[in-house]
């Protein structure tokens, strides 16, 4: 970020007063007395505010046997409290010209509203209310359970790719709950009840397990006053224990699976390796992996694309993916979609040959410089979306990182060397810690007509 600022100093001189020139400058953080962390991101260009509450509780914090309950509860938070009727929350937001929604992941559950900046107080009042006053009846539960099952139908059952992803994930994590789908296994979703939802709510929804993120046309002082008024009176949950999930044992054998579904019309091969995540005060490996994923699969100039799409012409698409913002072990993935006439085995072999060559030949210095320049520019582009910065902080702070880690991250990325990248690649690209999956349609059955004795006229 600092490097970027230096490079752009000529332009920065024209900047208007008041508008932040870097993410650090736009962001203020503090903590309420009850333990609720607050992040304020100032952007005064439009009279709009995004108000978010993130809980450090997601699908990976569920007890065994109730998969999907974190997400189910997220839906149920729209169903009424001691003070509000079912559906009233969203009605009030809409009546104030705002939009609202919520999302659930492995490490967090988040709720947000986008409204005119002068409605912030009302949003806080309602969000604070449903943090502690949820009031559900059996009928809400049953209808909404149907809704999440239809959601699973839409996202998963209707998509062979998504079903395949569930199987691969379950194989990648031998012990950690990241192997269980966020939306839940269908048979467990069908049995979720009011007690399951309330148990999760009582245990995890409390100010000392939540992060308030407010982005937009506000000042930190305004937010502090409003937050103290609405969230300040809520009691911390003294029983909130340390956040510990079952961890992975040493992984010592490569796993392979083939998922067949007649709805697959474009087969592909995908491999995931268990990979370290960003840890507080120790983000170097994750930074090197972030850049490695760009080098191997970040578009047309990447290693896999060069080898498989341009030179050998065995693939129509290839990519690498890694997201290091995770509470526990993350994954590093590679995907190759073969050209027509190329088998999955050939595609996988070509991918492995490409990886081997990369490890031998090393990093292209020019490519690395381009990637780093883009990352620096990203620090400028990011200022256009205070909502995007809000998400950045929300995910980081619910994934075990601190504000200092978020602020240090751009410089850590810039400091990554070619040697760091090769070293992390050698460690992580280890088949013993991987799952290789093939997605394909079943082999065509011998045509029934052909099996019949031939009949001639």
């Amino acid at each position, binding site marked *: 970020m600092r490097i970027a600022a230096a490079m*752009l100093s000529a332009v920065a001189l024209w900047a208007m007063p008041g508008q932040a020139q870097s993410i650090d400058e736009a962001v203020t953080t503090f903590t309420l007395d009850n333990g609720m962390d607050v992040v304020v991101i100032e952007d005064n260009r439009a009279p709009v505010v995004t108000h978010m509450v993130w809980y450090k509780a997601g699908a990976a914090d569920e007890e065994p046997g109730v998969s999907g309950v974190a997400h189910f509860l997220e839906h149920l938070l729209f169903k009424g409290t001691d003070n509000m009727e079912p559906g009233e929350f*969203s009605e009030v937001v809409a009546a104030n010209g705002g939009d609202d929604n919520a999302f659930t992941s492995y490490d967090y559950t988040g709720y947000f509203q986008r409204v005119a900046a002068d409605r912030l107080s009302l949003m806080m009042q309602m969000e604070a209310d449903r943090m502690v006053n949820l009031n559900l009846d059996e009928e809400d539960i049953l209808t909404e359970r*149907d*809704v999440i099952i239809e959601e699973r139908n*839409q996202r998963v059952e209707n998509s062979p790719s998504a079903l395949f992803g569930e199987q691969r994930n379950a194989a990648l994590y031998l012990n950690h709950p990241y192997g269980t789908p966020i939306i839940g296994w269908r048979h467990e979703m069908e049995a979720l009840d009011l007690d399951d939802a309330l148990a999760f709510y009582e245990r995890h929804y409390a100010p000392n397990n939540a992060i308030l993120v407010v982005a937009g046309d506000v000042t930190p002082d305004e937010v502090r006053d409003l937050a103290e008024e609405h969230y300040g009176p809520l009691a911390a949950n003294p029983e909130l224990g340390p956040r510990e999930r079952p961890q992975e044992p040493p992984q010592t054998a490569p796993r392979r699976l083939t998922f067949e579904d007649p709805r697959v019309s*474009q087969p592909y091969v995908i491999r995931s390796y268990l990979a370290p995540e960003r840890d507080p005060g120790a983000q170097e490996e994750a930074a090197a992996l972030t850049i490695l994923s760009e080098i191997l699969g970040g*578009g047309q100039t990447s290693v896999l694309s060069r080898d498989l*799409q341009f030179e050998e012409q065995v693939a129509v698409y290839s990519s690498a993916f890694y997201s290091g913002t995770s509470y526990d072990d993350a994954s590093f993935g590679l995907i190759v979609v073969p*050209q027509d006439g190329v088998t999955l085995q050939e595609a996988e072999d070509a991918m492995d040959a490409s990886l081997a060559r990369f490890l031998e030949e090393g990093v292209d210095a020019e490519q690395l410089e381009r990637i780093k320049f883009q990352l620096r520019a990203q620090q400028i582009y990011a200022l256009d979306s205070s909502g995007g910065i809000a998400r950045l902080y929300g995910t980081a702070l619910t994934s075990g990182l601190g504000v200092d880690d978020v602020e240090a991250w751009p410089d850590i990325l810039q400091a990554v060397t070619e040697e760091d990248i090769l070293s992390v690649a050698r460690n992580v690209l280890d088949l013993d810690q991987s799952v290789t999956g093939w997605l394909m349609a079943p082999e065509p059955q011998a045509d029934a007509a052909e099996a019949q004795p031939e009949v001639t006229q």
Partner: protein
Amino acid sequence: MIRIVLTGIACLWAASATAAIDIQEVTSENGHEAWLVEEPSIPFVNLELRFEGGASLDPEGKRGATNLMVGLLEEGSGEMDARAFIAAQESLAASFSYDVGDDMVTVSARFLTENMDEAIALLRQSLVEPAFDDASITRVKGQVLSAIQADSTDPDTIAAKAFTARVFGDHPYGSMIQGTAESVEAITREDLVAAKEAAIVTSRAHVGAAGDISAEELGELMDTLFEGLPADGPPLPEAVEVETEADTEIVPFDTPQSVAVFGHAGIDRDDPDYFAAYVMNQILGGGGFEARLMTEVREKRGLTYGVYSYLADKDHADLVMGRVASANDRIAEAIEVIRAEWRRMAEEGVTQDELDQAKTYLTGAYPLRFDGNAPIANIIVGMQTQDLDPDYVNTRNDKVDAVTIEDVRRVAARLLKPEELLFVVVGQPEGLEAEVSQ
């Protein structure tokens, strides 16, 4: 496929006193026009180009030519091959994306102020001098064929394809813009050159810019960017009347959840009742949990994760469309509820409460859309494609507020026609009386 052109959303602006947005109309020395919202506080620019015409300009028998052409714009131009072109973008931290729909070719660019001239030179190269070399044509054809293949088992695409084929027949809207495997295979380099000459023309260009750029700089930018592009293209397609009947067509596909798209003829954006129709649709099936379709199908009965309707105003046809997805054994009930809601709205209109709520939402939400260079550039170019005036941003909320309960009742009765509401269902639906197509 019918693209969800959210006309209403893309082009609306608040009449509030806080409307801080200042749209400048810019004309370059060479006569190119653009709208600009200058925002010097962050040193970069979003530039949006829209070329009217789009995939509907595909000549007969060359379906997919415009789509393939657009896919090749970033695959080599001037002296650069595909990878050199992308590497050059990366070196500038600029990003260009090229897209095509039924009615438009879209070019979106984002670049830093510090290297704006280099970025524009590179963008121009891709629009004026694309190489269309054989290796790239083969490679991108492979990608398009792979996408066509993948779409062939995607329930939403199957549904859109069946719906549009039935409604639009031989009109370009009646087939997928990607073309078929057969038509794509047959496209030649000459076809691609012709497609570019037809679709990327300056008289059909609209330009929107937001960010750290002055009116003068934008004028120079356009003169540079458009130098060497043809002025005019072939005639645009004819307008088409949408005619449907209250059928339910089933496309059998073995999947657990049925996907249904539905719709019939719509209303023109220039119609005096357009705003009333827009408000009416917000209450019927617009975004949010308060819409009747969401309340009845999801909230009360748990039949779906999502259901919505929208005014689909294409350049040459207008529809009211919607989508729902429910398990195979529940889709029949979902469709029954939607048909009943369609009829109830047509016969009874809305309550004053519903109208007031919808208006408060629509007028309050409008200014929230202008919260960054990227959305602003999109909005101001969208307004131009709909022949709106820059001052529209100041009058739009008044038009929403002026809609009365009688207006909504009148437009609902006129627009919503239960006897024309066509459903196309993809899946293995149970208990539906319908014709089955293959």
